[in-house]
């Protein structure tokens, strides 16, 4: 006890040198008694009874632990076999190159196969397109020919009409007769209107008798 007190004093003294206010000094305590205190006299010869499980429980517990340990061990072994770096194969450059080459050959085979398929389909497509374009060209040619024929027909019709009209043309042989006819049949387009709106044709010449007098109605 005295020793402890001395220790305490020592502690406080050492603290005093550092702390600005020794009045509010507190010492740290662990549990019920300071760490350096020996076992209490009253507890010195105390022996706590050993905890014992019932027999059944103990057997059960042992069984559980045994099976658990074996299972964990086997899992660990499996994982070690699978993932341990020691068991992993070392990196072989030659093998890696070979693998890449093999992979390339395989890929190129697949590529060739695809190309073959695509070639087939492309040829089919081109053939089909060619046939279609030929048919289209034929159709267009037919249409064009039809148009030409129509044009020709219209032209011929025009020529025929002109030919027909040319019968009435004044040729040098018919010139005298035509002049005579014109002199004998003067045409006068002048006319006058009376209050009733009647059209009276002719100013200097007499109109032909067969022309009926027309009536013009004044607009309101």
């Amino acid at each position, binding site marked *: 006890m005295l020793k402890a007190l001395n220790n305490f004093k020592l502690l406080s003294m050492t603290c005093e040198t550092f702390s600005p206010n020794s009045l509010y000094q507190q010492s740290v305590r662990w549990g019920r008694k300071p760490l350096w205190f020996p076992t209490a006299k009253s507890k010195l010869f105390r022996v706590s009874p050993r905890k014992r499980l019932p027999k059944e429980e103990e057997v059960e*517990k042992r069984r559980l632990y045994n099976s658990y340990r074996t299972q964990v061990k086997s899992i660990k072994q499996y994982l070690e076999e699978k*993932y341990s770096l020691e068991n992993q194969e070392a990196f072989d450059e030659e093998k890696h190159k070979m693998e890449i080459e093999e992979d390339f050959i395989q890929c190129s085979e697949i590529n060739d196969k695809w190309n073959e398929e695509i070639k087939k389909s492309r040829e089919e497509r081109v053939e089909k397109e060619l046939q279609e374009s030929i048919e289209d060209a034929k159709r267009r040619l037919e249409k064009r020919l039809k148009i030409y024929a129509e044009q020709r027909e219209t032209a011929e019709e025009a020529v025929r009409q002109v030919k027909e009209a040319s019968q009435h043309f004044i040729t040098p042989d018919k010139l005298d007769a035509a002049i005579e006819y014109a002199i004998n049949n003067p045409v006068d387009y002048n006319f006058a209107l009376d209050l009733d709106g009647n059209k009276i044709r002719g100013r200097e010449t007499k109109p032909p008798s067969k022309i009926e007098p027309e009536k013009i109605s004044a607009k309101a």
Partner: protein
Amino acid sequence: MLYPSSGTGQFAANSAKIIRFVRKGCTNRPFFHIVVAERRIEQQGPAIEQLGTFDPMPNEQDEKLVSLNFERIRYWIGNGADTSKSVRRLLGLAGFYPVHPTSYITASKNRRTEEEAALKASEETKPNETSPANV
């Protein structure tokens, strides 16, 4: 000295490694990282790699959330890392390892106490039930 909690990735070649908890969080709020570390290094020291997390405080749905990187756990166990008991318990509940015996033992203990409590409650209620019948 502060170390990245995701791990430094550095370790001595032939040192013993262990998968264990590292307490993060703060006072009255525990939160654990599950890490692989060298056994000789203290808990808060540099970890080799983080393998998961564990939140021991139940959330609103009464769940304790755990995350585990099984791929890396498999790798580290395969390369000779040991596991701490609490991590083994978690792995057992996660289905990675067989269920740990302590899980069975605590469960049976809890069941027994529950049964006892129920028995006690039924005994207490029995006289109350019989009394109105007698009257």
